[in-house]
């Protein structure tokens, strides 16, 4: 029987083995909080459709091994092709370890990259998995873009985990601050390989100061047997603009949380996502936007294609707080369900506490249009090809919204490769 809880004593020992540095205080505080509150279960409304038990199990196996954090391994086989194909200044985090060379190599005017442990941090108890991240964090990245500065080349955060042992865990963390009137383009890429079981847990904290802009692309293409939970928390300054575009191709159990907090007027947030899930995959996207003041806008569109026994969850929540007049919030979620055993659980939520708002959401679940399929077949295209064309078109809507240019080609390839493998399985 798998336990729903970490063995806390072993967890305490693992934390004690981490170096004593300026992160020690938050590790201990987060551990104490985690010990008291634990991790969520399916009884928690936000975790109704996703069970963390298998991940806790990997964690406990890893703790049993008693290794000194996750072992290092050469990740260049995985990371090199990605770095070559997408133009960016890449920062590398491998098995939870920040690559200092990649920090040193990044030399862009107006951009400062440091290890998180260079500064004192304060613990943030907003989410249980953030506690886990803080407690076991070896080190993270801190990226600052100076005020009045537009970066010249996208910054990349490449997370590569090599699961060389039976079970391993890695914690990824980046705090990013975009100064007033500045622009940042960032590509976050998660990949993994290896025979062992692996669970990666990432936390991104992004702060946009007044009139700043961040274009953020997250790509997750882990080994199909590996797992990830990730939380991106965004705070928007006055008149700032945030565009997030997320892609999930790989992984077994994936859970993403995107939380956007609008506490200053004039900001605009756009978040789009695409999830392509096949055999044994479980991909859960939760988004939450808190409109605390107005005017401000948020728009999100997530699309998913599901085959085999894939299960996907999309939960979009928009909360319009008292006094957030002039809020305009839109949510859309569209799903293609292409197999008998696939399941989608969609939940678009609106909580509105003021009247000067415009909110809407639309969700659809359906299949490929039979007429279009037939049309393509009468033009001599086989069924797989026809499905490929139509699903690619469906997915392309999200790719076309990319706010950063450099990964466009790679993404188009990833989408089409992933879809053709998924569809071959469907037709068989």
């Amino acid at each position, binding site marked *: 029987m798998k336990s729903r809880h970490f063995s806390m004593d072993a967890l305490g020992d693992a934390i004690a083995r981490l170096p004593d540095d300026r992160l020690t205080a938050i590790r201990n505080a987060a551990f104490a909080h985690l010990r008291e509150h634990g991790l969520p279960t399916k009884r928690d409304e936000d975790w109704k459709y996703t069970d963390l038990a298998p991940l806790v199990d990997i964690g406990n196996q890893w703790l049993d091994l008693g290794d000194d954090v996750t072992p290092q391994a050469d990740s260049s086989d995985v990371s090199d092709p990605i770095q070559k194909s997408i133009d960016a200044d890449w920062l590398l985090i491998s098995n939870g370890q920040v690559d200092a060379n990649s920090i040193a190599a990044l030399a862009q005017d107006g951009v400062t990259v440091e290890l998180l442990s260079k500064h004192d941090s304060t613990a943030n108890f907003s989410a249980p998995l953030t506690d886990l991240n803080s407690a076991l964090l070896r080190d993270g990245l801190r990226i600052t873009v100076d005020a009045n500065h537009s970066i010249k080349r996208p910054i990349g955060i490449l997370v590569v985990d090599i699961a060389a042992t039976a079970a391993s865990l890695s914690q990824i963390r980046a705090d990013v601050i975009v100064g007033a009137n500045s622009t940042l383009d960032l590509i976050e890429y998660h990949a993994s390989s290896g025979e062992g079981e692996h669970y990666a847990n990432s936390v991104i904290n992004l702060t946009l100061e007044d009139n700043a802009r961040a274009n953020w692309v997250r790509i997750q293409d882990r080994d199909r047997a590996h797992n990830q939970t990730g939380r991106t928390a965004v705070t928007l300054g006055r008149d700032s603009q945030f565009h997030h575009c997320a892609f999930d191709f790989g992984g077994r159990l994936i859970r993403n949380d995107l939380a956007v907090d609008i506490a200053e007027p004039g900001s605009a947030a756009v978040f789009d996502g695409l999830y392509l899930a096949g055999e044994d995959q479980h991909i859960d996207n939760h988004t939450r936007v808190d409109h605390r003041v107005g005017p401000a806008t948020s728009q999100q569109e997530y699309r998913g294609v599901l085959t085999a026994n894939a299960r996907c969850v999309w939960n979009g929540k928009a909360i319009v707080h008292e006094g957030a007049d002039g809020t305009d919030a839109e949510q859309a979620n569209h799903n293609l*369900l292409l197999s008998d055993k696939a399941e989608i659980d969609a939940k678009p939520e*609106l909580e509105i506490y003021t009247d000067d708002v415009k909110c809407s*959401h639309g969700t659809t679940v359906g299949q490929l249009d039979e007429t279009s399929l037939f049309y393509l077949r009468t033009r001599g295209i086989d069924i797989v090809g026809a499905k490929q064309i139509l699903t690619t078109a469906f997915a392309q809507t999200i790719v076309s919204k990319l706010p950063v240019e450099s990964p466009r080609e790679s993404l188009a390839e990833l989408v089409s490769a992933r879809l053709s493998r998924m569809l071959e399985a469907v037709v068989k």
Partner: protein
Amino acid sequence: MSTDPDNIDSIVNRRYEHGFVTDIATDTMPPGLDENVVRAISARKKEPEFLLEWRLRAYRQWREMQEPDWAHVHYPPIDFEAISYYAAPKSDDERPKSLEEVDPKLLETYDKLGIPLHERARLAGVAVDAVFDSVSVATTFKERLSEAGVIFCPFSEAVTNHPELVQKYLGSVVPQRDNFYAALNSAVFSEGSFVYIPKGVRCPMELSTYFRINAANTGQFERTLIIADEGSHVSYLEGCTAPMRDENQLHAAVVELVALKDAEIKYSTVQNWYPGDENGVGGIYNFVTKRGDCRGANSKISWTQVETGSAITWKYPSCLLRGDNSVGEFYSVAVANNYQQADTGTKMIHIGRNTSSTIVSKGISAGNAQNAYRGLVRVMPQADGARNHTQCDSLLIGKNCGAHTFPYMEIKNPGARVEHEATTSKISADQLFYCRQRGISEEDAVNMIVNGFCKEVFKELPMEFAVEAQALLNVSLEGAVG
């Protein structure tokens, strides 16, 4: 551009029209609930053994259950030991045989409610089974219905005269332990309505029941069971109103509908229980379980509701679409004003093949009210060809109210087409000024806009109800805008 906001909060707040207490001595059990109370209720109603056992099982399960806390509502804890679980008018011993025998005070009550039973029932061609407190006191049109073979009677009468039907269907849609309040109802229900429409019969008239709550501190636990046998058709109307009083009253009804092959049930509700005063004092707690089972192929169950009353409403009329090609519908207008809280919606569970469901929910929030739509559309793996369309709209009037939507879609079949749309809008000052410039008063303008917002639901109501519902809505929103 805006109309004076102070003005918006100041149109006359008409008091609840139906606020009065009928002064009739009642035969009431002392507060509190244990097995003896359950036995006493069953004994007073001279129930057969199977029903007593059924109640006791429900009671024991209820004891083990937790009060639900997931709804978007807040209220002080309910003391279930302070509630009296049975009240009957004194005149129970001698049931009136005709309207002339009915306690004149009761008739006067109905008059005050605008329900002149004898005239109105006949004029509208409606059979009325009026529940006063927990025991039925008058039933009309019995002959015409019995000619058609329709059974429409108080629940206790069905227990005596048709025990086989009751035993077969009671709890078959809402099991005793379905939820906390359903279990409580199953243990202590005292009255309600029973309807059976035989094979191939189209019920010759709309059936209607007016529920009321009257005795102080008495929870009201109706049980309604409607069975539409193969190929039959029935339209059932339920309307409610309650006297004004200060202490909160718990109401936990259970309604079960069973539609067999090719049968159709249309269930309409206008709910206008005392919502509490402008400051949120008093009002009914309405925790209801309503569920329809489309058990046979090609069956159809349609829920239409206009909810303007109660301090707290917790209600999800649902459809289990088990028969192939069965159809479930839910049309709802829920109004919450002042400090009312509503958490309502529906569940459509697609099980059979080619089943379809339609959800149209219109929520109106005003004052300091909170109005939530909570809905579930679940398509099971075997439900090939399932279709759902959901339209969920909120209208906000004023700055301090809230409108929330929590739709769940759980789709496990690739042949399903599910669409969900939701919008939120407000009555804007621009619209009001425009109407006023055309000579229409602000109050009339609000009524006009609200009725326009709700018309998709109103058109589903039987004619006489639609008119009543519209009037009710206008009264409910007075004071919300101005």
